């Protein structure tokens, strides 16, 4: 089922937590709502579920306006960060709950419910744990029970609110890959909320980034990662070096070096270029390209990556961060105090006043 949201605005008292949101989730898509805390992503998700009501705007499921439909009649699966399992019920009763509370005429028979529960236990790889109570399960298992419970009602959309937020790193990674596979198997239109950009880029087909109640950028994970559309996006997706400069006819001039850029910027504008640490390469000799001259001040190898801090030797004398692979680092035999040439492989440039906001 597709979801269309038009002009959704939400006010809590005087604060606007969502400002005129428009978006579409296509049938069968796995969409991530990504944003820092307070960006309004959870509120938006809860609105799709009917657990929260919009101050303005409409929500459509397959073209039907569900804005005023009660949560219990929307047929959505909702998975909470802290599982929200019914702790006094066995795992199998948790999963069967949605089927048992159906109206008599829609309710499956007892054997039907039982076989459905077993089928779901198998799907979430918890066969044989139906007789346990939630307190006897690990966090990852609990979340899989919660997922099975929400899938029992064969929801038209599946909504997950920071589903892996309470789990530790290892389980989290396993579960999110597993969610991806599960989504392929079931094909249910799925929306999940996360503040972890890695998670969103790893799992989703489409990503929508929210900040301050507004959509900042949307697109496929690779589009989002390759072309962040604002300083916020660069900063939110991971650390990036901020290089102040001026726009010229040839490109962007930073500390006397000009980086060729196809982005249109008016001649003479103050701009800030964002460069990711791993999108800088280092060399001992100047090539034909434009390089920033730097002095290595710190190296910090962590597993396969070496984090390097270097000081620019041009006018600004700012510190920049560079990440090299262990192999590249070893080949260059970098030492602290070395003068080197830093070549910027990729960057994004924005008006300096955008940056000021």
């Amino acid at each position: 089922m597709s979801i269309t949201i038009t002009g959704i605005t939400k006010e809590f008292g005087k604060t606007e937590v969502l400002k005129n949101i428009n978006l579409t989730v296509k049938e069968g898509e796995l969409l991530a709502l990504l944003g820092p805390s307070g960006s309004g992503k959870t509120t938006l998700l809860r609105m799709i579920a009917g657990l929260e009501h919009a101050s303005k705007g409409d929500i459509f499921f397959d073209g039907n306006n569900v804005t005023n439909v009660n949560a219990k009649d929307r047929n959505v699966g909702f998975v909470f960060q802290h599982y929200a399992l019914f702790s006094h019920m066995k795992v199998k009763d948790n999963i069967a709950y949605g089927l048992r509370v159906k109206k008599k005429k829609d309710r499956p028979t007892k054997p039907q419910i039982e076989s459905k529960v077993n089928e779901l236990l198998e799907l979430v790889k918890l066969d044989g744990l139906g007789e346990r109570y939630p307190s006897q399960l690990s966090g990852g298992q609990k979340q899989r029970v919660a997922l099975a419970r929400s899938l029992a009602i064969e929801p038209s959309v599946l909504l997950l609110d920071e589903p892996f937020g309470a789990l530790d790193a290892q389980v989290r990674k396993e579960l999110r890959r597993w969610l991806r596979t599960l989504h392929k198997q079931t094909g249910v239109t799925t929306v999940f909320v996360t503040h972890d950009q890695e998670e969103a880029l790893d799992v989703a087909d489409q990503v929508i980034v929210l900040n301050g109640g507004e959509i900042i950028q949307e697109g496929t994970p690779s589009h989002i990662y390759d072309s962040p559309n604002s300083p916020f996006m660069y900063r939110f997706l991971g650390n990036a070096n901020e290089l102040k400069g001026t726009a010229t006819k040839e490109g962007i001039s930073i500390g006397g070096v000009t980086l060729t850029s196809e982005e249109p910027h008016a001649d003479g504008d103050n701009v800030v270029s964002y460069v990711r640490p791993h999108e800088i390469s280092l060399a001992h000799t100047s090539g034909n390209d434009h390089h920033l001259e730097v002095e290595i001040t710190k190296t910090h190898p962590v597993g396969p990556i070496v984090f390097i801090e270097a000081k620019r030797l041009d006018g600004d004398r700012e510190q920049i961060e560079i990440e090299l692979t262990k192999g590249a680092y070893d080949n260059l035999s970098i030492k602290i105090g070395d003068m080197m040439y830093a070549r910027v492989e990729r960057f994004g440039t924005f008006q300096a006043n955008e940056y000021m906001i």
Partner: protein
Amino acid sequence: MNTKTYKPLLIFSAFLFLTLFLLLPLLIIFIGAFSQGFEVFWYSITEPAARHAIFLTLLVVVVTVPLHTLFGLAAAWALTKYRFRGRQLLITLIEIPFAVSPVIAGLVFIILYGVNGFFGEWLLANNLQIIFAVPGIILATMFVTLPFIARELIPLMEAQGSDAEEASLTLGAGGFRTFYHVTLPAIKWGFFTE
């Protein structure tokens, strides 16, 4: 000290305290009651005055417990699952009987319903007696015990949050089913302590 040494010590002191302040007084009462033999005890509790006292106590329990359960549950539900204007005020109001001395509470009831009280003339005119009668006993008991159920349930329900209720809702259960299948089982231990 390791756990092995101080664990029995803690358990022992808890039992000592309970014995001194709870079990011993109870024991004394029973010893006193049976000191002149079972027959005297039986005679004493079956004489009309005693029977009336027992009946009155039971009546008060029968009236107040269901009422408190109903109101306490409603109040706790409203206070923990919803955010509304006046919520804080309601919490304070529920706490008042804890803060007010029972003597003052008694005085308040006399001022309100006594012969010279606020409603006194009207009550007299309508031939209704509250103070020094059964309604007075029930009213006073209700006042003193009002906070118990709500106070017991609020922290419990607060800690549980509304996630489970919301989960139930999205699974297609209405308000009543959610209350019966999810909220009530989760708080039943709170009720047992009442």
